[in-house]
């Protein structure tokens, strides 16, 4: 470890330290450089493509269960009953946002585009049950009962119509 290396070590140490301190000084002095946001007061506006909590517009939802099948972690549970006019009536549609990993596959595959990501990302609740979002606000039993009644009426009307058609059909044979 010759003397020259010894001196060189010291000089290099001092020079590189001063260079580093010059940079931190430059940041230290000009206060405009602050980049941190004061979170509760200044909220960061999320991009319109931001994948926040899911929201399903049940009016347009055709309960085709595509989203249930595509979800990798099966966090969407859907229950539907076939209505009188052969279309499915949604009984209950829940998304467990604790299991959901916001991958966006369900929103992509939803044919009527009724399932969308909202911009929300803040949710703190007291018990785990509340983390399941229920999108159908009526209670399930009520809907089922209503639909069952409609189906029964439709069936009854269809039966009378069939009897009436029965009655109408024999007359023409006698005339012929």
């Amino acid at each position, binding site marked *: 470890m010759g003397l020259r290396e010894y001196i060189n070590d010291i000089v290099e140490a001092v020079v590189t330290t001063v260079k*580093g301190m010059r940079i931190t000084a430059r940041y230290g002095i000009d206060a405009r450089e602050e980049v941190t946001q004061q979170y509760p007061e200044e909220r960061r506006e999320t991009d319109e*493509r*931001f994948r926040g909590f899911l929201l399903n517009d049940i009016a347009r939802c055709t309960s085709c269960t595509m989203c249930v099948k595509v979800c990798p972690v099966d966090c969407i549970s859907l229950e539907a009953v076939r209505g009188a006019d052969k279309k499915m009536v949604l009984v209950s549609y829940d998304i467990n946002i604790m299991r959901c*990993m916001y*991958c966006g*596959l369900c929103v992509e595959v939803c044919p009527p585009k009724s399932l969308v*990501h909202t911009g929300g990302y803040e949710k703190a609740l007291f018990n785990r049950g509340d983390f399941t979002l229920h999108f159908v606000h009526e209670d399930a039993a009520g809907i089922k009962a209503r639909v069952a009644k409609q189906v029964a009426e439709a069936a009854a009307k269809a039966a009378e119509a069939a009897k009436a058609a029965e009655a109408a059909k024999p007359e023409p044979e006698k005339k012929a």
Partner: protein
Amino acid sequence: MKPNVPVEALHTQEMLINMGPQHPSTHGVLRVILRTDGEVVVNARPDVGYLHRGLEKIGERVTYAQFMPFTDRLDYLAAMNCNCAWAWAVENLAGIEVPERAEYIRVIVCELNRISSHLIAFGSFTADMGAFTPFLYSIREREKVNDLFEAACGNRLTYNYARVGGVSADLPQGFLEKTKEFLDYFEPKIDEYNNLISYNKIFVHRLANVAAISADNAVAYGLTGPNLRGSGVSFDLRRDEPYSVYPKLEFDVCVGTGERGVLGDCFDRYMVRINEMRQSVRILRQAVAQIPEGPVLAKVPRVFKPAAGEVYFRSECPRGETGFYIISDGTGNPSRLKIRAGSFVTMNIFETVTRGLMIADIVAVIGSFDIILPEIDR
């Protein structure tokens, strides 16, 4: 003056320390069982598996498209690279033709993610060495990259942006201008980092000649990526086993040069990452200039059943190669999915390299390997 007490009689005991799963500088839940004699490490045995979620078992349960969000959780600092690696692997298996624009978008987001991953590697490494300030500067730059990703795919960490056959959505309005803006802003910052910390005497002294790995030792132990190039082996998948549109983009492969000590020491691995950031900026400038118009997603049947076969495809991730060995038996789910992670194989050499170092060097070695635990434990 002969010591009157023979040294052997002094009963000194080795200390067994748990650099436990919860430690400020193990970059995740890595446990290192340290057997030390005072400060000098006699044996450092890594114990991994604290973050094992069984991704390969999940891979056999979900379909090819559904596995994409899980690849974000493979290396969450370079999720884009893992997404695209999975997409390329499946396209290689099923022979799907991906439109030109989608390939360019993939290269753009992958290189942006390489920059943000190397920024984290640089920041956390200097923080481990005691200089906390550069970490904050690197986080500031990374936030700008995150804003770009949020505009493109909607999420800031787990992007889930690639799809089998292309990308999920086209780049938004003004994305390319914002990227150019970021590149112009970012390039001088690398020189600032070098002035601030890279050539700082204390930093160099902490890293030079520490845990040097010779070139053939690196290859034998299966090191890949910056760790391999740090030892002087000029091997980069983007150039030597080209995939996607990398052949159309010219960049040079940064290799360790033993600048401040032996070839292949911690300083070389660190400097390879810094220089690689510059190369990524160069690639990005060309990709942003050459990107064509056109569709971004190929026609892939919704119920996607690739032909039976076995494929091993690997792509260059910031932490080494990420390889997917997929065995498909014709059904919708892969029958076996092996993920080869860069950090997992790097940990293999950890025990032999850290013999005789000091405790402070263990932290330096972990930082210079830039390992990440979800990739190790899968």
